[in-house]
């Protein structure tokens, strides 16, 4: 296989996580904050799958697979778990934001921070 310089997939995962950190720290809108959390989960998933890649590997499923090495299978199972947990967290956060909007009337995180009444 050709050599990919400088661990490029790992750097892409780090970049995705960095952008999502920027969104989470600096944005005030709660919906954008939820989008940032989803982006961070995408970065983590990309990192996990890239961590288990073996050069020239096939999928670890024996049904009509061509000859050759197989990629590591435990990181892929962990990614599956991570995706499902991400769905659960996103659904819970969205309903929480709906409740916040119903109580305070705005999506600004500065205003909903005060928790009055």
């Amino acid at each position, binding site marked *: *296989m050709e*050599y*990919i310089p*400088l*661990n*490029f*997939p*790992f*750097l892409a*995962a*780090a970049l995705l*996580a*960095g952008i999502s*950190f*920027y969104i989470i*720290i*600096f944005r005030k809108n709660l919906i954008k904050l939820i989008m940032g959390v989803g982006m961070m989960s995408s970065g983590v998933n990309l990192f996990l799958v*890239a*961590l*288990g*890649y*073996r*050069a*020239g590997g096939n999928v*670890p*499923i*024996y*049904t009509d697979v061509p000859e050759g090495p*197989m990629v*590591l*299978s*435990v990181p*892929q*199972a962990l990614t*599956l*778990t991570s995706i*499902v*947990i991400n*769905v*659960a*967290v996103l*659904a*819970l956060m969205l*309903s*929480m934001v*709906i*409740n916040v909007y*119903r109580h305070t009337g705005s999506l600004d995180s500065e205003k909903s921070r005060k928790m009055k009444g």
Partner: protein
Amino acid sequence: MRKIAGLISWLVLVAFLVSGMLLLHPFGYPTPSDMDDYIIENAQEETGSNSVVASVVFDYRGFDTLGEATILFTAVTGVLLLLRTRKRKEESS
């Protein structure tokens, strides 16, 4: 002031992430893979499943999947609980 503090913390986080990624093994050549080699070799005889990922999810790491199912159940219960109380609030206020 808070913006500057946030920027500094973000820069530290990104520097940490990027330096950690640069220190990893080269892409495509994972170093310790004994457990995965054992699972890939023995999954067909031990679980009878052709798909190694399915045998990892449901057999070798079944306890993990049980916790995952619990998380999904808790999230659905929480969403239904959070979105249910609308009518009562309007009546009381």
